């Protein structure tokens, strides 16, 4: 499967399009409805963070595969990358705490995404931008 989709986020419509693209890809890969909802919500959080804090950015969604290793069997899933060239994040540990927010939100977005997905990586450089990469494996 090589059905990557790439959605630009610069308005709230971008958030909605990214969500729709994510849901349809998750469905195609074979996720059931609870995981579809988790994936869609994670995309919504990442896209909204781009819209709120960076202004412009993109969400890339693609199927992933991992060959069998001694410790885990062959598996498939979905990878989501949220990338922006916004202000970046000063203290990553801080933003990963439940309840930390600079915008009067719930501060549940990033820690929530980490719990919604199976793998979570965040990289950010102040003044250069932020990239969040997450994976959900098919069970």
């Amino acid at each position, binding site marked *: 499967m090589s059905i990557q989709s790439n959605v630009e986020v610069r308005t*709230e419509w971008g*958030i909605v399009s990214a969500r729709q693209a994510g849901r349809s890809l998750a469905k195609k890969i074979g996720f059931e409805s609870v995981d579809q*909802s*988790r994936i869609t*919500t994670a995309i*919504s*959080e990442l896209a*909204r963070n781009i819209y709120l804090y960076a202004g412009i950015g993109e969400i890339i969604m693609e199927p992933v595969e991992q060959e069998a290793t001694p410790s885990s069997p062959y598996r498939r899933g979905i990878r989501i990358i949220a990338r922006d060239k916004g202000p970046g994040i000063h203290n990553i540990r801080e933003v990963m705490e439940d309840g930390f927010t600079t915008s009067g939100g719930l501060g549940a977005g990033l820690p929530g995404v980490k*719990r919604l997905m199976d793998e979570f990586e965040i990289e950010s450089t102040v003044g250069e931008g932020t990239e969040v990469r997450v994976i959900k494996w098919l069970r």
Partner: protein
Amino acid sequence: MQSSIVQMIESQKKEIVDRWQKEMESVSKEFGVDTLNMREHRDWNDDFIVVIFESIDADDGNLKGRFRQFVENLIQHGWSLGYFTKGLQIFRRILLDIMTTGETNLSKNMYDTFSEIENWTDCLTNQIVDEYSGNWENTFQLQQTALKELSAPVIPIFEHICVVPLIGTIDTERAQLIVDNLLEKVIEYRSHVVLIDITGVPVVDTMVAHHIIQSAEAVRLAGAECILVGIRPEIAQTTVNLGIDLNKIHTKSSLQKGIQTALKLTHKEIIDIKK
């Protein structure tokens, strides 16, 4: 573009800009800019003329992006399409005028003819642009109003009991509208219990959850009780993963159960009438 034209524009840049700025002031007035925000408007014009000059270098790959940004900015500030077309028409006229001054009679004559035709067709273009964009704006406003009315419906179903059925995507504007409208209607209908039904909301992310919590809080401050119903199983799971505790709000699995609770809270009862 011919390099002689580019050269001429470069060498006369100051005059072009001055004349254009001056003429644009009357365009601004036409679009309802009063002297108060005339200054802000001058800033816009400054940006406008800069992007026009930038566009001379058509090979610049970033140009489209910069132009789009400029246009989008103006759209967001509610500028009409007519402002752009007029601005460009004036720019063209000034260029041609400067180019043909001091030229031979022949080309001056040609310019006059050309300019007369241009004035005539520009007027038509402008009228068409105004009609079209007026039409768009009207349709858009009608749809906005319709959407707003549909966005946050508060339906009184029994004395002191209201239902708020939310259907479809919720963006920040709609979320705020729901909070505001809900409070207003709760007071207007003297509700004691409000049932918010989210069966039709496809995604409940932190933003939506935050606004639901705020609504419930606002309703409580207004002296009523809020019950959240229609939380689908996958939404319940997802919000738990997000770390949001919707149970801080009174919840019921279905609208029916919610109505039963609401009736109890308002000391009402529905009974079967036996024959």
